């Protein structure tokens, strides 16, 4: 199931080229990811118990500030033993601004090391899977 996050832009997201700055897209993805995990409740604070291992972002079109939000669609494309891949598309109906793929690793903050995906988390993540 794809999760759709309605992402409000800020004027200050643009840089002096009058485009939303490349780094800000990664912040949109983080917000979308957090909302997806919160809304589908894998296990209470999943979004706070993960780290990003890898990002790949393709910037397809410049995004310019507008008061209407854009949509960030997110879904899980792979669930491994101790990592998962989340895909994102930032779009506005027909126009796709960015496609991205992130490898997420569940992380034990106390021990400061990666941890396996728990069974309850796996079940919830499967509901967010699309291939």
């Amino acid at each position: 199931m794809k999760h759709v996050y309605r992402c409000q832009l800020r004027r200050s997201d643009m840089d002096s080229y009058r485009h939303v700055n490349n780094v800000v897209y990664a912040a949109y993805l983080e917000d979308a990811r957090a909302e997806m995990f919160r809304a589908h409740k894998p296990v209470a604070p999943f979004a706070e118990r993960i780290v990003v291992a890898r990002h790949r972002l393709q910037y397809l079109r410049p995004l310019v500030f507008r008061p209407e939000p854009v949509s960030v669609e997110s879904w899980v494309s792979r669930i491994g033993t101790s990592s998962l891949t989340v895909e994102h598309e930032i779009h506005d109906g027909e126009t796709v601004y960015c496609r991205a793929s992130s490898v997420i690793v569940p992380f034990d903050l106390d021990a400061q090391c990666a941890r396996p995906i728990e069974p309850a988390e796996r079940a919830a993540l499967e509901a967010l899977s699309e291939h």
Partner: protein
Amino acid sequence: MSRHVVTCPLRWSDMDSAGHVNNIVHLRYLEEARIDMFALRAPQSGVPVFTEGTVVAQQEIEYLIPLRYGAEPVRVEAWVTRVGNSSFDIAYEIRDDAACYARATSTIVAFDLNMNTSRPLRAAERAVLAALADDINDRADDSAGVEVSR
């Protein structure tokens, strides 16, 4: 022919609630290194270059080791790995002497901000980029990099 090395001070607030420098902030460090590379290297060529604009078309970053705030800066090393007709690739490492925290690549497109479209790289821009290609076959005395204090 060398890597461009930027000394990157960390800010305490770069860390998130996990106590790691946040994944997004790493991308900000790459941008700073890239801008510094152009700002410092381009004027040396004696012609204004990159002033018409560049945009980022693609980025890939691999987070290898969590980075935590410390008084000591890290280094961002950046070098050019490909020069095309209107785009080029930059590779980066965020590191110190002890470890490499992240590796990344960006594809940068020369962009005409008025026409809102890509444009071919100018000859002067190509010359600057050629000097930033980190070729392991280059002479050893060229491999030291330019150290920039910020």
